[in-house]
């Protein structure tokens, strides 16, 4: 098995204590940093798909994301100044009036693993705060809004519409338990992901559209 294949398996199985050494071995063997990163991103794609399919659960997804971050730490100095690996910045938060953060945190991890630079605004984020974050950060290509409560769905709508009014070309993705594709369409979001596992592929699809 090649060194890169080792890294892929270690990420997919969440072996965070072994990934760093495996990434270093792959670099030492002459593998390009970008190729190693792409391999880890692909592994996280597999993890996301398995989560969406119900084959794995939140702990498995969490340890895989942690393993990937350990691998990225090794690659960072090697890739310093090379912006080509980033998909751009994504601003994420749970909308105003809603304090749920577990699903949002999972999505942050999955998008980060997919190659986005994440800015996590936390919970109870007002529509204006999303707009301010777009203004204050570089290369923002996506805003992700989460809402778990039926009662905060109007806040989701307000967030999407406020962001769109301030930045008409900005892509916005939404998600959360009560959200559906129909609701996402109705409020003018560019996309919807039903779970954290599928959020990364949907986010990439939206920014490429």
């Amino acid at each position, binding site marked *: 098995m090649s060194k890169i294949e080792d890294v892929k398996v270690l990420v997919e199985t969440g072996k965070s204590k072994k990934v760093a050494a495996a990434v270093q071995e792959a670099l030492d063997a002459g593998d390009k940093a970008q190729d190693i990163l792409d391999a880890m991103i692909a592994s996280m794609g597999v993890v996301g798909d398995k989560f969406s399919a*119900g084959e794995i*659960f939140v702990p498995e997804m969490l*340890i895989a994301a942690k393993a990937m971050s350990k691998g990225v730490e090794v690659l960072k100095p090697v890739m310093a100044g090379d912006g080509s690996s980033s998909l751009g910045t994504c601003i994420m938060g749970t909308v105003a009036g809603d304090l749920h953060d577990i699903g949002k945190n999972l999505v942050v991890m999955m998008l980060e693993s997919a190659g986005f630079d994440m800015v996590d605004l936390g919970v109870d984020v007002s529509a204006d705060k999303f707009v301010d974050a777009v203004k204050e950060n570089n290369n923002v290509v996506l805003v992700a809004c989460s809402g778990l409560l039926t009662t905060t769905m109007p806040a989701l709508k307000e967030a999407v519409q406020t962001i769109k009014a301030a930045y008409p070309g900005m892509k916005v993705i939404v998600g959360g338990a009560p959200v559906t594709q129909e609701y996402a369409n109705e409020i003018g979001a560019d996309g919807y992901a039903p779970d954290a596992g599928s959020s990364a592929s949907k986010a990439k699809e939206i920014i490429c559209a």
Partner: protein
Amino acid sequence: MLTIRENLLETMKGGNPDRFVKQYEFIDLIMEVPLGVEFNYGQTWKDHWGITWQWPEGQLGMFPVHHDGLAVIQDITEWKKTVTKPVIETSDEAWAPALAHANAVDRKEKFATVFYAPGIFEMTHHLMGMENALMALYEEPEAMQELIDYLTEYELEFAAVMVDKLHPEAILHHDDWGSQISSFVSPDMFEEFFLPAYKKIYKFYKDNGVELIIHHSDSYAANLVPYMIEAGIDIWQGVMNTNNIPELVEKYGEKITFMGGLHSGTVDYPSWEKDVVKKQVEETCKANGHKYFIPCQTSGLPIENFEGVIDYIDECIDEMSKELF
């Protein structure tokens, strides 16, 4: 006409109930139990385990806080340094309101029911945050097992006092085991870490006169139903439609009863509408039937967020009983 209690038991054994069980009608819930659990709307506070809670104004519930170093457990391998079992109230004075309530229950009609929350799984993530708790099951399984054993020990100590003081006939026990679409942990992980704890806890209650174990988890948890049965759960309260309730009733009904089918978020909201509620009650009653199923809001307590919902759901269930019995 069967009594409320008889009607429930007929429903649970797949016999001949003469109407749908109406939500929580069969329990008289003794909320005066001195659990130490506080519900402080609009406030931030520390509970008896040292967990920081926030219930901001305008929110429907409270949340444990783990950021800024507030989590009780910062390092799972060192949990013993920061986690201490709270003192359990044993004085007659502390239990007097609960005892008065227990003595006043009409036990011919209703089950004298005690309330317990949070359960073992929730305690693990209340103490250290969800992500840390879930990752620790993989990364530090021995420490997690020790913590779970310690939490179980506390629950059993509390249970011993509670059954001695109140002689309850039922318990409504909260522990959310999943999101709306999946269980938080795999069935294998549940079997390894949480099933043994619940087998001990629920066996203790059953051995001490508690006839009904009602476990609340408003989530998907269909993949955990075999373990619910093994743990001794009689009624899974909070079952959501994401579980395919008719299939569960068909497969497991003889061993466990399912209570839910009405998602609180879609019936109990600020401007709730009668047509919406009525339609959902009709759908759940017709889809799930009256054997091994109790139509109920998925909410874990017989309390409504917005006035009039519970009574109207009951009214709609009565109409369904007239139509379908």
